C-alpha cells in the first residue's frame, strides 16, 4: 500500500520534472487518497520551490518555471474549494501589477503565483495599471508589499510615477516597493526610490519573504 508521503512525493516529482501529462492524474489520485488539501498544497509549494532553485542555479529556464507555475495554478483551482476549513493566515499582503503602458504579464504572473504559493495574500491588478490604481489598492488593502513589473523599456519611467504617487498620498513609508522586468536595473531601482530590485521572479519573492520576516520580527 502506498503511504501518504509517497503519494505526495510522487505528485511533487511530476511538478519538479515538469511532467505536465501525468500531473493532473496524480493530483486527482492525491485528492482521492484522503490527504488534506492543505497537505497537498504544501507539497506542491515545495515542488515549485525546487523548480525555482533549479531556475536560479541555471539548470532550469523560464520555460520550466512558467510551466511549473501553470501546474501550480491548475492545482490551486482544484484544491481551493477544498481548503476553506483549513485556511492559514497570510504571511503578508502584496499588490502586484504591470505599470501603465505595458501589457506584458508573464513576469508579473510568475511573481503572483510564487508569492501565493509562499503564503502571501496577493492582489493582482493585471496589466496597464495607472499610478492611481496602484496607490488606491495599496491603501485599500493596507499592503505590505507593492511589486511593479515592466517589460517594455519605454514604460520604465512610469514606475517612478507610481512611487511619486505613493509619496504624494503619504503611503510610501507603509509599503515596501520592489521592481523587476527585463529592462530594469539595480541602478534604475535606486534612482526612482524603490526599496528593492529583482533580476528574476524567484529572487523577488525571496526578497519579499525576507522583508516580511523582518517586519514580523520587529512587531514581536
Amino acid at each position, binding site marked *: 500500500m502506498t503511504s501518504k508521503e509517497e503519494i505526495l512525493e510522487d505528485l511533487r516529482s511530476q511538478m519538479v520534472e*515538469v511532467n*505536465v501529462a501525468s500531473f493532473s492524474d496524480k493530483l486527482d489520485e492525491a485528492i482521492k487518497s484522503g490527504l488534506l488539501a492543505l497537505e497537498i498544497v504544501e507539497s506542491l509549494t515545495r515542488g515549485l520551490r525546487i523548480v525555482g532553485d533549479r531556475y536560479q542555479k*541555471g539548470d*532550469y*529556464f*523560464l*520555460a*520550466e518555471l*512558467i*510551466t511549473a507555475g*501553470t501546474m501550480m495554478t491548475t492545482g490551486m483551482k482544484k484544491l481551493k474549494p477544498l481548503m476553506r476549513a483549513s485556511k492559514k493566515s497570510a504571511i503578508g499582503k502584496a499588490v502586484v501589477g504591470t505599470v501603465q*503602458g505595458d*501589457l*506584458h504579464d*508573464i513576469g508579473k*504572473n510568475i511573481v503572483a503565483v510564487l508569492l501565493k504559493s509562499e503564503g502571501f495574500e496577493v492582489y493582482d491588478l493585471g496589466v496597464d495599471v495607472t499610478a492611481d490604481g496602484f496607490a488606491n489598492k495599496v491603501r485599500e488593502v493596507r499592503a505590505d508589499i507593492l511589486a511593479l513589473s515592466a517589460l*517594455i*523599456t*519605454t514604460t*520604465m*519611467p512610469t514606475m517612478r510615477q507610481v512611487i511619486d504617487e505613493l509619496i504624494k498620498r503619504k503611503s510610501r513609508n507603509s509599503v515596501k516597493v520592489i521592481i523587476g522586468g*527585463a*529592462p530594469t*536595473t539595480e*541602478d*534604475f531601482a535606486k*534612482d526612482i526610490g524603490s526599496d528593492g530590485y529583482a*533580476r*528574476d521572479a524567484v529572487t523577488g519573492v525571496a526578497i519579499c519573504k525576507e522583508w516580511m520576516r523582518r517586519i514580523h520580527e520587529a512587531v514581536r
Partner: protein
Amino acid sequence: MDSVTRVTKALSVEIPDRVPLGEFAISDAIIGRILNIEPARITYGDRVRGFAKLGLDLVTLLDWGARPGKNRQMSEGSWVNEWNMIMKTDKPTDTDWWVGTRFNSVEDWEQFEMPPAVSDERLETFKKAINEGKGKIAVAGLVWGPQHYGHVLLGVDKLLTSLYTHPKLLKKMLSDVNKWWIEWGKALIDLGVDAMWVGDDLGETKGLLMSPKHFREFELPLIREQIDTFRKKHVPVIFHSDGNITQIIGDVVQAGINALHPIQPNAMDLPGVKAAWGQKICVMGNLDSTLVLPGSRDKLIEETKKCIRTAAPGGGYIMASGNSILANTPLENIQTWVETTKKYGTYPIRI
C-alpha cells in the same frame, strides 16, 4: 567611404574608415521630430530618410509581416491584423504597439490560414523604401526568427508551456512561420537590400528563455535554414536577440551569422563577447538606451567612447544602442552620440 561599403566592411570583420552607426529601431516619435511628420503617418521610406538624416549608416526595415489594408478595427486606436495580433496606438508617442494575440493556444494554429508571404502591396512599399536609401545609407531587411514570431503570435508564456504540452504542434507552427519569413526574406533580397536581420529574442536578462536542449531541437534548425538561404544569396546576416544568450552564441555563430546584436548591456558582457567571438563575427550595439542615451551629455560621450575602445579596434564593430532608440531620447543626444562615434571611431582607434 560610403555607408554601404563601411557597413559591409564591418560585417566582414574588416577595418572601414570609421565605425559605422546603425540601429535596429528608432521610435517613430523621433523620426517624426527629425522629419517634421506626425508619427502615425510615417512610412518605411520616411524611416530610411530619418535614419540617414540623423547620420546613421544602416537602417532596418522592421515589420510584422501584415498588410495594413487587412486590419480589423476593434475600437478607436486598437485593431487586429491579419496574423491575429492585437495592435494599439500608444497615445503619448502616437506610435503603434503589439499588445496581445487572438490565439488562445497553439491548437488554434491548425485552423489558421497564413496570409501570402509575398504580396504586391508589401513589395511596392518595401521597394520604395529600399530605393529611398540608395546612395545614402545601407538598408537592411528583417525576418523574424521562429521563436520571437511565435512569442508574438502566441504570447511568451503560451509558447514556452507548449514546449511541454504540445511539442509536435509547436514544431509545426514554428516551421510554417519560418517558411513564410524565408520567402519574404528572399523577396527583400531580390528588391536589393544590403543586409538581412534575423530577429529572434531568445533570452531574458538572466539567461535563455528555453533550455539549450529545447533551443537546439525546436529553434536552431529553423534559424540555420534562414541564415543559409540568405547567405547563399550573398547577403550578410545580422542576428538580433535581446537578453543573455551566452550559452548558445556558439550555435548561432556556427550557423553562419556575420554579426551579433545588441549585446544588451545589463545582460551581456561586451569585452567578453568581443574577446570570444570578435575574430569570427562583427559585434553590434551595447550602448545603454534606457539611462545613457536619453541621459547626460558627459555620460553619453563617456559610454560611447567605452564601446568604441572595447569593440572597435581591429574592425568588426557597428555602433548601436543595446536595444533601440526610445521616444524619450532628445534629438541633441542622438546628435552627440553620432558626432562622438564619428570623432573617436575613426580608424586607427586612438582612445
